[in-house]
């Protein structure tokens, strides 16, 4: 059981969470196909901790994240944020989620309003009192943008004028501008070259130290997780088959699937593959 003292340190608690989608059944329209994307998942994230989720494509990682954000309703189980239930979409619950959690979605191309310039997109994440003062707002937007390695020349661009990797960084800058306690990152570096990956990893580590930020990071890249995460959850077919600290997981993996992942060296392959997407400038 969680003691009172421990409870304050626990930021996010997920108990027996299940998520399923209904899909049209091509053969029998009266009986929709049920896809169980997340099955009976438990996870506790403490403040200041970095938890990684790895697993192959379709294992339910994004569904898990969308449920935490309140965009998908769980079929069973509960989610607690700072000890309060947020898994039923009440006004209060959603308010709490919006206040403390920011996501960076997997698809950077779809995550930015095509009709909003970068400066305004990031400004929208700033509090109203800052937005009211033009010069302060401009300065803060620029600061956040520069944290992610982009510069003032991008402020006036529309999203379609940026590369996928640049858009991804704008999304990270925007999420950070909101100063969330918990940042959910869905494949955050997938379109970045190695140099930018290091920059971003350093940025996250720095913020973690300075602001005690908490991260939940999804990746199918185990090698990057080794650098970033304190604990790793391995997901397969909607289930967490193993949750362990990074050292333990790499030293003595418990589950066969984890061993498989480690053996396949997916990390190396993914990094190599992705670095070709965007050449360092």
């Amino acid at each position, binding site marked *: 059981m969680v003691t009172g003292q421990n409870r304050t340190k626990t930021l996010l608690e997920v108990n027996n969470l299940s998520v399923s989608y209904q899909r049209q059944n091509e053969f029998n329209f009266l009986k929709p196909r049920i896809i169980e994307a997340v099955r009976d998942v438990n996870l506790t994230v403490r403040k200041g901790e970095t938890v990684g989720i790895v697993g192959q494509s379709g294992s339910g990682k994004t569904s898990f994240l969308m449920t935490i954000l309140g965009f998908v309703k769980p079929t069973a189980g509960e989610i607690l944020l700072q000890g309060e239930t947020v898994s039923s979409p009440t006004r209060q619950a959603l*308010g709490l989620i919006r206040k403390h959690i920011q996501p960076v979605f997997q698809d950077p191309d*779809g995550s930015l309003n095509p*009709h909003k310039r970068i400066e305004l997109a990031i400004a929208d994440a700033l509090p109203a009192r800052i937005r009211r003062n033009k010069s302060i707002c401009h300065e803060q937007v620029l600061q956040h943008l520069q944290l992610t390695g982009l510069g003032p020349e991008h402020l006036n661009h529309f999203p379609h004028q940026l590369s996928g990797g640049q858009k991804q960084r704008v999304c990270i800058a925007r999420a950070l501008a909101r100063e969330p306690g918990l940042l959910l990152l869905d494949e955050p570096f997938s379109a970045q070259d190695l140099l930018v990956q290091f920059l971003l990893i350093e940025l996250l580590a720095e913020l973690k130290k300075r602001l005690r930020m908490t991260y939940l990071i999804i990746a199918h890249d185990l090698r990057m997780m080794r650098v970033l995460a304190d604990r790793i959850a391995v997901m397969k077919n909607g289930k967490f088959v193993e949750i362990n600290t990074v050292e333990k997981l790499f030293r003595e993996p418990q589950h066969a699937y984890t061993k498989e992942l480690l053996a396949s060296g997916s990390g190396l392959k993914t990094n190599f593959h992705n670095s070709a997407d965007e050449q360092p400038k």
Partner: protein
Amino acid sequence: MKDWYYLLKKLWRDKSARIGMLIIAVVAVSALAAPLLTPYEPNTQDLSIAAQAPSFSHPLGTDLYGRDLLTRLIYGARVSLGIGLCATLLAVLIGTTVGLISGYAGGWVDNILMRIVDVLLGFPRLFVILLAVGLSTPSVKIIILILGALSWMEIARIVRGEVIVIREMLYVKSAVALGISKRKILLEYILPNTTDVITVYATLLIGTTIIVEASLSFLGLGVQPPDASWGTIINQGRIDPINAWWISTFAGLAIVITVIGINLLGDSLRSLLNPRADQN
């Protein structure tokens, strides 16, 4: 601003859009500059030169009251285009508002609004328009109101459909996650992304409205003499279509050419502004 510049440039490269824009520009400019283009008064009668065939001093002839037909057509363009534009604007305003609310709110709000749309679309439109015009004293303002108030339903449906798709986009989810207000999300994240479809449909609607207005005026229910719209001019030509053939012919041509121009532009806009392809 830049957006518009690029769009114009792209349109100019498209042959049918170019023709359409040129036609519209000629009609619109002559409507705006009417007093500068012609020495004649549109409404001053001179029965001594009534019903004269096209000649050097009256290139398109004169009407049954001795008024220069070209002058009447140019001034008529003001009325016909003006009604087409204003009624379309009104329809876009109503339709977009209804569509945005319906698509974003969902639930019973959506249900009620869409049933109203269904009912309104269920009536034969020309019949309702004729009835409404017949029951009122026709004036340009009333015609604009009636045409606008009875043409917004398709726009509402189209916008609603777009909103339902856009609502699920990650950039809207991002905005929601940022805690941005519903109003701002609707106005800054959803509305701007529906403008492409609205532009296409509105352009085509201007053409339709010009034809409907002409039909009303032709039936004597629209713009009242001595003011002229293209429809009233055709109506006058009806009195002696054989001997004074030029009256209806040129007024009819004005309508046909203008509407073709508008449709050429509208169709090019449709293929250029394919909303699913605009990200690149």
